[in-house]
């Protein structure tokens, strides 16, 4: 049996705009529903780390945002690539909508990393492979955004941005494998931090809940931003004049 849903229908900004509007609150609610137990497990269930004391509790925001910073870059590059290949304008708008949230996640990961590095390594920052490649990720997001902002014609901005996004995607596996490929102060995969099974469980659950919360939040923020971008770019088209939410 074939599906009756025509997915291509949603490739049109006119149909996607109201759909995104209906989805946004649900993703915000989902983010809160994951964050509350995530914080609870992270601060009240997970025990003290025997090496790092309480400082390790930064992990719950640090790892979640660091994962998301890499994942969002791949999502951004994917939509930018689809927009470039098929000339679908909504795909390019999605890429532009992901970028600021991706940059924000990268910033939070770097910030929380600095505040974790200071008490554990004695330095806010070191120029090692993991930290440097994550900083490059931030510059890639900012480069994508400023390039698009500098070009007046949106379709040309989409194409130029897509080139940066696609070239920069090579940095994502470099970040991910940097702790294996080079000597680094940065610890390896988080699960190896654990000393006993019970601790592994509580820490892992806290980390996964926070990762899901950040994921849901990123979807909500991206959908909200793509709605703004759609209005900005399509404001003179007929369907926008007929939108119910804009009627007085």
């Amino acid at each position, binding site marked *: 049996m074939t599906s009756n849903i025509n997915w291509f229908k949603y490739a049109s900004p006119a149909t996607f705009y109201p759909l995104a509007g209906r989805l946004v609150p649900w993703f915000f609610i989902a983010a809160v529903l994951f964050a509350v137990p995530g914080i609870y497990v992270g*601060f*009240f*269930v*997970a*025990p*003290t780390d025997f090496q790092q*004391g*309480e*400082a390790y*509790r*930064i992990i719950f*925001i*640090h790892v979640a*945002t660091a994962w998301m910073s890499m994942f969002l870059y791949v999502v951004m590059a994917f939509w930018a690539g689809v927009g470039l290949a098929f000339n679908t304008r909504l795909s390019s708008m999605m890429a532009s909508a992901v970028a*600021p*949230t991706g940059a*924000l996640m990268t*910033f*939070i990961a770097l*910030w*929380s990393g600095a*505040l*974790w590095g*200071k*008490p554990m390594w004695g330095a806010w920052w070191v120029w090692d492979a993991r930290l440097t490649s994550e900083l490059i990720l931030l510059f890639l997001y900012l480069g994508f955004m400023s390039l698009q902002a500098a070009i007046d014609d949106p379709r040309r901005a989409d194409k130029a941005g897509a080139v940066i996004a696609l070239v920069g995607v090579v940095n994502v596996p470099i970040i991910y494998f940097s702790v294996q490929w080079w000597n680094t102060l940065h610890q390896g995969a988080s699960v190896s931090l654990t000393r006993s099974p019970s601790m592994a469980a509580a820490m892992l659950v806290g980390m996964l809940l926070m990762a899901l919360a950040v994921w849901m*939040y990123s979807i909500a*923020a991206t959908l*909200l*931003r793509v*709605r*703004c971008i759609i*209005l*900005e770019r399509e*404001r003179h088209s007929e369907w*926008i004049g007929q939108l119910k*939410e*804009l*009627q*007085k």
Partner: protein
Amino acid sequence: MNWGGVSAFLAMGGYGGFVWGSYAVAALCIALEIALLAARHRRLRRSISN
């Protein structure tokens, strides 16, 4: 994890500034992003319906 009091919880074993500094800045950034996006959308809707 039993903290045995609010001050012990806030102190985070001497790492309070680092732990809360991470979470506070993250929360602030997220709140700011939501506020900016909501304002941008509201402004757009108003300017289009006029």
